[in-house]
């Protein structure tokens, strides 16, 4: 285990809330205690940061492996239902199945249905009806 490995390990730890760590493997054993857990934005975070101009937020909940996010596949306007007076496709709490339509993104006058990639329960609707969304913008959190 050389200094490079240790640095990489430290960088990883700083993306987490781990304050004590021990590892033992074929190469040896390492143990560290950190003064502080990572705050929202640790300096050495390797994940892409959201741009200053963009709206996309890192969803911390992604860290929990059973929480998934449905993101917008295109730029457009987000609609929760097929028509103004119609019911929403899903609400917080709804159960969804893979392939089920969860919303519509209007782009260039065309209504594009967005299907869930997961089977599970909607825990949050992240965008309000009628709001513009950019590519990759989180729309729903799904607990699987």
């Amino acid at each position, binding site marked *: 285990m050389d200094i490079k490995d240790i640095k990489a390990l430290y960088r990883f730890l700083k993306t987490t809330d781990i304050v004590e760590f021990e590892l033992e493997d074929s190469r040896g054993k390492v143990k560290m205690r950190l003064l502080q857990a990572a705050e929202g934005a640790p300096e050495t975070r390797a994940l892409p*940061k959201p741009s200053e*101009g963009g709206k996309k937020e890192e969803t911390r909940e992604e860290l929990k492996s059973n929480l998934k996010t449905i993101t917008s596949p295109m*730029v457009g*306007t987000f609609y929760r239902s097929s028509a103004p007076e119609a019911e929403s496709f899903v609400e917080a709490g709804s159960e969804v199945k893979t392939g089920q339509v969860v919303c519509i993104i209007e*782009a260039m006058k065309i209504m594009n249905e967005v299907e869930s990639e997961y089977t599970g329960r909607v825990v949050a609707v992240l965008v309000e009806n009628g709001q*513009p969304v*950019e*590519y990759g913008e989180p729309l729903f959190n799904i607990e699987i």
Partner: protein
Amino acid sequence: MFNKMLIANRGEIAVRVIRACRELGIKTVAVYSEADREGLHVKIADGAICIGPARSSESYLNISSIISSVEVVDADAVHPGYGFMAESAAFAEVCEKCGIRFIGPASSVIRLMGNKIQAKKEAEKARIPVMPWSGCALKDEKDAMEVSKKIGFPLIIKAASGGGGRGMKLVHTQAALGSAFHMAAMEALSAFGDGEVFMERYCERPRHIEIQIMADEHGNVVHLGERECSIQRRHQKIVEEAPSPAVDEKLRHRMGEASIRLAKAIGYTNVGTVEFLVDRQKNFHFMEMNTRVQVEHPVTELVTGVDVVKEQIKIAAGGKLPFRQGDIAMKGHSIECRINAEDPVNFIPSPGRITELRLPGGPGVRVDTAIYCNYTVPSHYDPLLAKLIVHAPTREAAIKKMAGALDEFHVGGIKTNMPLLREIMKDHEFIAGNTDIEFLSRFS
């Protein structure tokens, strides 16, 4: 004037357009792919919108995504920069239909000049010299043989829908003609979706000299003199200058007048560039017209004092040109070097993180760039890192200034072509102004 402009590009040209808009009081929205989240254009625009994944075809070349972005952010105009959508007649046409002002000429004019056969015909109609050519698309191998007798060898086969040097075949003998014709047609079809090719006499060791024109929507057309762009590698310019050491006032006037004739003949509006090959006897021959702002526009800006991008936007907003031909003079000399993220010897791209950066500065030094220290150059796009442009009273002084600025320019973490550029600034032939489009292939 426009209220909000969507900048449908990335890198230094997006930054350049944002700067022009800011000075004109136009709000800006940058678009970016997932690979460009940290792009400088995203940081300095008033707003930004992610339009797709890293692949250009799904982001910067995605018409639906861009038009949708314009609608979502409620922009009234879109600037295509150069590359990507800049010469897409289809994109310009969608903009026209959606009531979005595309900063460029009419889609019909883009389409006309995009077809190199049509463009040559228009040039001939406007009494502009062209190299002897087939006059239309080659029908088949037999047709090619017939035409070659009239034109003579060496000749070159080009794609009607090509441009920028792609899909060209140089033919030295009749024996090689048949297979060259078939290969060219096949390549053209696969590269541009259009197998039409034509043939023209090959001009040996010419200079590449182009004329910047500006045409408003009120019938005024002015040229801003020439740019010398002979230093190219595989048809990619790397050093440009204005004026050209080969062009005197008389030749400038003739080439300028020819360019204006063409622009007027085709109803051209906005900024555009007419490219010529100039042979050693200083005869000029129309090559093609670029219906957009050029990478190398800054050299024209520095010698004429005209802000090309600001004027381009003002023209699109219906403004009249604020100058006449007589007001335009070239003052001093300007040189631009394109600094690319690539190995200076084998030209292999070198993307990656910029760990150290020192930009040159001081009097007469301009840097147009979208890089900064700790920025990671993505591998998905062209390797242009920065344009270093200098202006000095004479060509000799400009070369010295460029040499010094290149020495100061320090990029750590990735490879750049600066060692090559520094060598060019010291080259006796370059210093003497003896360049042609084969200069770089002779360069050791």
